[in-house]
């Protein structure tokens, strides 16, 4: 039996009269990369907020084993702090100054932004800012990363690059990851398991497993096939299209 890092058990949540979840159960195992996809407004971000304990379910149980960090959809770097100062936030618990400096340098190297350590976020491109956000979340002894559409504000090509960046960073610093995304290719390219949610009140339509090592080519047959399956589950493509052989 694998070690559980996060779970929701029979969780229900309503905002006023709107039911977001009803009897939802999901387990995430240690070192697993799970992507959650689903229609807009189905409660994907709310699920992350449950995991981070920012909100509580109306009923049901939430469990979490380890230090959780979240990467948000919109710019959440402090604009009044430099790149180095923002990343250092993630190392606050380290008392030893020298150790903190060493880890900060490691993280700057990890995201290839050593030369930009004294820059402010507004002086960086969108992709660079997202790399800093990831470094801040990866800093210190984080066990679990909750990623809330972290690349949604980037252009398509930068998004493709950032997927490889994330895969590379996780190879060096393995974490349990829950990625909420509306980008189905992103889910297929990155996740070990993809959880497809239905429209509100959200339930799990299906779970797809991927055993391909990361980084994965976007055009790899298994990635393409998984993309088709997710689209079919979301009712955006017909099941028959799955039969079309991948050339």
């Amino acid at each position, binding site marked *: 039996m694998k070690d559980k890092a996060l779970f929701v058990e029979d969780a229900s949540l309503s905002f006023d009269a709107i039911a977001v979840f009803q009897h939802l159960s999901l387990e995430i195992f240690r070192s697993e990369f799970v992507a959650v996809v689903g229609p807009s407004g189905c409660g994907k971000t709310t699920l992350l907020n449950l995991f981070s304990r920012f909100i509580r379910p109306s009923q049901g149980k939430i469990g979490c084993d380890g230090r959780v960090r979240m990467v*948000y959809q919109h710019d959440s770097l402090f604009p009044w702090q430099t790149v180095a100062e923002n990343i250092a936030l993630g190392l606050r618990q380290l008392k030893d100054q020298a150790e903190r400096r060493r880890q900060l340098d490691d993280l700057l190297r990890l995201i290839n932004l050593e030369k930009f350590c004294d820059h402010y976020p507004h002086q960086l491109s969108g992709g660079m800012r997202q790399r800093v956000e990831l470094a801040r979340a990866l800093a210190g002894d984080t066990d679990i990363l909750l990623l809330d559409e972290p690349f949604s504000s980037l252009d398509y090509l930068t998004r493709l690059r950032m997927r490889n960046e994330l895969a590379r960073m996780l190879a060096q610093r393995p974490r349990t990851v829950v990625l909420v995304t509306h980008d189905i290719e992103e889910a297929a390219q990155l996740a070990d398991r993809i959880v497809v949610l239905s429209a509100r009140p959200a339930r799990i339509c299906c779970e797809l497993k991927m055993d391909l090592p990361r980084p994965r080519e976007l055009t790899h047959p298994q990635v393409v096939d998984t993309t088709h399956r997710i689209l079919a589950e979301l009712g955006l493509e017909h099941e028959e299209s799955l039969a079309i052989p991948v050339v």
Partner: protein
Amino acid sequence: MLVLFAALLIWSALSLLKVFPESVFPSPLAVAKGFVEEASNGRLVDDLVASLFRVTTGFALSVFSGVPVGLWLGRHARARAAFLPAINFFRNLSPLAWIPFAILWFGIGDLPTIFLIFMAAFFPIVIATIAAVANIPSVYFRVAHDYGFSNNEILTRVTLPAIAPQVITALRVTAGLAWLVVVAAEMIAGRAGLGFAVWDARNGLRMDLLVCGMIVIGVIGVVIDRVLLQLTKISSVRWGYER
């Protein structure tokens, strides 16, 4: 610089052509002589010091009370709903309307002027701080929570730096307002100061000294703004003006 030179040229031309009688339109030379006279007898420096003292005290009082009040109201919606109508009322009331009360309560001298500057600057600073606090993206507070900030750290490391650019802009505007008010207040409730000097020159029909006073008032106003402009160049607040 060129514009300044052109203005001086037009002024000289108008005065040479005697478009207006010299008694009501002093020449640049007469004003320069008046300036030397005022500077050498020490009156100019005394007036300048008196006005700057009042504006600095009144403005500092407004900032050190207005920003905390704005911070508190910015974070407490019910208190804000209760106090905002009164703050808006006083903000829209010209501070000069308080002059009779200022004289009755505080007499003549520094105190009534400082009171009037406070009444002019306090309410706009409160409103600007409330707006700045309300505009802080909530994600910053979530990050602060995620990274274990204490309440004190949330104030000093999130709220204050997040509102700094907007508050600094408000300070520049209200400092200009305070400078306008000090001159007006000294005309009525002062016994020294640049406003009093202008009023005294008018009473003595010394239009050269009046223009001299006007120029000094304008120049000091620009200098105050330039000094506060330096605050916008602090590296940790530049984001507010550059992005």
